[in-house]
């Protein structure tokens, strides 16, 4: 009993730190979502029930359905492509070769950049008038006219997804490479003796062995992608015609452009509820197959 108290005392500073810097802002954000909290009029801060949520769900100027659809499109496309390319990268880097560490350094470089800077770089690359991408495609003869990568609402989402894929591939590359290097070579030797082809080895040895890493990285990365509006904000501002607005960009707009902390917090609460639900369902689904995942 005395030891328990001692333990409690020891974790108290850390607990207080977490409460102050994580739970309190979270709680305060939750409270603000139900308040009329606008920087334009701080004299009129009051509880307004679900009004902020109603304004978001029934906004005549930008439909919530579109924002949700864009968020899903942004997340799923980015996640799938990042994972597949990251996996491929990890497979290629698995076996040692001359200069591998230098090569790894270059490949993993995007992960070290901040989102807003990446957005600025890619917005210049994708610029329809002066951009390098159009110029290269034109010189190679693939296109005859400039493509409005960021100005055409039909393709703007794919353009921002490409930038996000460029950014996110190294994460999967690093994590999966570490997992791949932990697969015992004996397993491959045994599989080879059993007559397994390379593809069979991949699906029956490699993937099952690194599955826990795959599950946890996919969960984390999908959450980060939902919470990564910086790139979109720097490249398109959510446009053209709202075609790249996701929940995160709307939240930034509400707080930094419209100074409406109430509605901004309501967007935050919606994102949190969606991500929590997703995490619970995802973990249940992956656990039901008898794996101890995360």
């Amino acid at each position, binding site marked *: 009993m005395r030891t328990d108290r001692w333990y409690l005392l020891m974790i108290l500073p850390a607990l207080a730190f977490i409460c102050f810097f994580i739970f309190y802002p979270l709680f305060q954000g939750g409270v603000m979502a139900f308040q009329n909290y*606008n*920087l*334009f*009029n*701080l*004299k009129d801060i009051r509880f307004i029930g679900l009004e902020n949520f109603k304004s978001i769900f029934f906004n*005549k*100027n*930008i439909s919530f359905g579109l924002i949700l659809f864009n968020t899903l499109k942004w997340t799923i496309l980015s996640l799938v492509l990042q994972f597949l390319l990251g996996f491929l990268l990890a497979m290629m880097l698995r076996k040692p070769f001359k200069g591998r560490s230098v090569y790894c350094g270059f490949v993993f470089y995007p992960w070290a950049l901040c989102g807003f800077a990446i957005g600025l770089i890619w917005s210049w690359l994708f*610029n*329809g*008038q*002066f951009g390098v991408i159009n110029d290269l495609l034109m010189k190679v003869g693939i296109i005859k006219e*400039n493509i*409005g990568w*960021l*100005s055409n*609402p039909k393709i*703007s989402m794919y353009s921002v997804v490409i930038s996000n894929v460029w950014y996110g591939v190294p994460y999967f590359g690093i994590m999966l490479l570490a997992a791949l290097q932990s697969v015992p070579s004996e397993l491959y030797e045994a599989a080879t003796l059993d007559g397994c082809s390379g593809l069979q080895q991949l699906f029956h040895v490699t993937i099952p062995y690194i599955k826990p890493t795959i599950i946890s990285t996919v969960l984390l990365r999908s959450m980060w992608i939902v919470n990564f509006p910086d790139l979109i904000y720097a490249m*398109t*501002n959510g*446009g*053209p*015609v*709202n075609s790249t607005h996701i929940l995160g960009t709307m939240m930034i*707009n509400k*707080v*930094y*452009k*419209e*100074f*409406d902390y109430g509605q901004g917090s309501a967007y935050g609460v919606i994102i949190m509820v969606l991500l929590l639900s997703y995490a619970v369902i995802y973990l249940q689904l992956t656990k039901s197959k008898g794996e101890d995942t995360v």
Partner: protein
Amino acid sequence: MKKTIALFLAVVLILSFAATGAFADDKVTLTFAETMTSPERTLVLEKAIETFENEHPNIKVELVSPPYESAETKVASMLAAGQEVDIVEIRDNTVGSWINNGFLYQLDELVKDWTGKDELIDAALLAGASMGDATYFIPQYLYVKALMVRTDILEKLGVTEMPTTTDEFLAVCKQITDASKGQYAFALRGIGSPCKTTDIMWATEVPNLRLDNFYLTEDGTFYMDTEGGRKALKDYYELFTECCPPDSVNWGYNDQINGFVSGITPFLVQDPDAVGSVSGSLSPDQYTAIPMPLGASGTRYLDYGYAGLAVAANSEHPAEAFEFIKYMISAEVNASICEFYGALPVNKGAYESSEMFELPVYKAWADEMADEHTVFTKFPLEDPRFTEYSSTVHLAAIQSYLLGQSSAEDMIKTCKDFWGY
């Protein structure tokens, strides 16, 4: 022994007083929060502060420089929390809310005997009085739109006469555009509150606009919902589809500047700070500015965007803070700060003390402001909905209209319904 103890206690007492500043001089410390932070600009401010402190040995100024992206919200939070701030930089789009929240000190008493007021240009006085009868801030520099022109490119393309009306402007734009050669005419503003450009360009087609809110005519009609408003929208659609790079629907400030500097789009509607952005790449004989073309109304409605200085409501040293503001507005300092940006100084003397503001391109702004057809009006900035309108509603509506996804009537209805006019 008692004497020794008494002496010891006396020494301790004196030392403790000294340590707590009881014997410190009467030096006043002012906290100055900037909101348009950039490392280079902070250096300019620090230099100005240093000179001020030398001239006023009893005042010390501490500069607070929050990161640009969140500076306004950060300073607003400081003011709301009653933190020690004496002087703040204000901007036209948020000053209304700061006054409304009681963040700013009413300067009328201090301004009353200030003779330096006479040194300010008219537009600065208008801006200073734009938030009601009371004075809460002193403008530091102004943004007024004009039509910037690449004279060298136009000459090469055979244009010698500068457009003076909106019809002439559209005609010249159509004349010089040759998309097959990558030559367009106009650097359209696609993102980042494009209404601040379009409204200025369109309003001139509509007569009798209100001077306190140029979204409304004097009889209360939403300005786009008029014959002139419809013509303006139609012309703008033609301008975009026939004379602008298609990609410009997503162009922000940097893209506009790039289009202008590269010569792809030799016409640009911008504030004078754009001169600061292009002057590094273009020589003064390659470009100039001309007054905004006149539309059917025969009136050029301009708004005076501004940034200024204000005293925080909870400042304990408003008189000293105002002393600092007066110093910042003085001709020489005002010129040096504005030179950094290229924005228009508010002090008449700044135009004479600075070589930069004697350039022909700045004379054009002066001519435009003095022109008899020019009328200063303003956006409904004091309405909290304006930020939502400019950054979301109008932005999506105009992109949709220009890309052919909706009609001019749809655009008018969206904007009109938003305001409820």
